[in-house]
């Protein structure tokens, strides 16, 4: 992991071929299925995304987001079912409060806007998922590689 990050860092410094890494936490019931639909519908979107399937957006502990940013992600996406559609009835409602507070905290700390994204994507919204990923990758490319919170090993 460390070696990979170092080599990527060098690449971004020298020939400008840096590609952002986006870690996406997608809920099993909606957003993961939405990403799947984007795939089987042959919808084109940037391949910079690494999907981690979670049971529910309510499963997301903000520590996951921090850890991702610290260990090499340039951006993090968390996506779940639309409010009212949670497979577990209310998981995303609890998640929404957590995300709202946490995103405001990150902003307050001075982390750039455009590193952490929260969204609702249903299983039927393959196209929206493609657009979302494109939007995120565009934003992160504007910001460049993450340099805040990133743990550098000297």
């Amino acid at each position, binding site marked *: 992991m460390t070696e990979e990050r170092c080599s990527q860092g060098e690449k971004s410094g020298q020939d400008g071929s840096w590609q952002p890494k986006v870690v996406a936490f997608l809920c099993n019931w909606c957003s993961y299925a939405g990403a799947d639909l984007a795939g089987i519908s042959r919808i084109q979107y940037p391949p910079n995304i690494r999907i981690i399937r979670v049971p529910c957006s309510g499963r997301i502990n*903000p*520590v996951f987001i*921090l*850890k991702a940013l*610290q260990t090499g992600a340039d951006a993090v996406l968390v996506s779940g079912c639309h*409010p*009212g559609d949670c497979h577990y009835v*209310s998981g995303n*409602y*609890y998640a*929404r*409060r*957590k*995300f*709202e*507070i*946490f*995103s*405001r*905290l*990150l*902003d*307050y*700390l*001075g*982390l*750039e806007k455009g590193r952490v*994204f*929260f*969204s*609702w994507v249903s299983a039927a919204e393959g196209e*929206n998922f493609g*657009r*979302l990923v494109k*939007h*995120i990758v565009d934003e992160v490319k504007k910001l460049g590689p993450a340099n*805040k*919170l*990133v*743990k*550098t090993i000297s």
Partner: protein
Amino acid sequence: MWSEEITRNIQTVAESLLREGKVDLVLGYQAGTSPVRTAPAFIRTPQEASLLVWNPFCENNLSVYLPRRKERVAIIAKGCDARAAVVAVQENQISRDRLVIVGLACSGIIDRRRLALAVEVDQIRGFSLAGDSLGLETESGGQVQLELSGLLADSCQTCTHRSAPIADIFIGQRMPEREVEDEFAQVRSFEALSSQERWRHFMDMAEKCIRCYACRSACPLCYCQECIVDQTQPQWFGKTTATEDVLAYHIMRAFHLAGRCVDCGACSRACPMGLDLRLLNKKLQKEVKELYQYVPGLSLEEMPALGTYRTDDPQTCITEK
């Protein structure tokens, strides 16, 4: 409010609670190693009740000793201590029927660091209180008069609940609340800085932090048996004092207190490096209050902000595509 009479009443109440067998333990304050310090007191017999003191040096939040306590316990509680006790009850850390909250009104405690700037603390032999003035006797026989209001801890300056909001026994009179124009004024002025300046500030803070975890130990609501920071499988947090690791700890410490922190200021006072940890906590209090109209520690029935939801909660963080 500080007076000899209140101190005597505290001793009497503690003594009778223990004598009548209503509680097994009274948590209070006793004289510390210097006249201007107090130490937590664990009073278990009626005879010991006379050790209890009550003065503006009673800075510890004694609710830190409540979680998972099995005995019946009475706690001598200022406004913030009582609120922390209420949160501990809400979160099932102590059973309400084993807890007696002995509420008091507090006009604010003295910040040790402010006092040390004003006088040579080692030289103090005794103190006296009269209204807003603190009289200090020095070793050389001198007298120093200081205004209490100039020595108050930061958290006391923006205190909104000076009297214990929930109490089984209340000693003395409830106090009118302090006129605080905007309890979040410090947060607002910090928010007005650029994001680079804010980041710089927190990086400076992270550089100073030595990760002694005194903030965590002093906090009445950091009661997890195993803190996520200490976990090694998986290891979520780096253990070093590199700024990124330190900041990650402070982010999660503050976040875990979102909707729970009662702003007692125990974390900042415990910090040996003098870091203003309340700057993070206060921000989250502000957001929780503005977004969910929730102030922790005032009601046993209400659900904590992050333990409940409304279907129409604001969602400004959501990206729509």
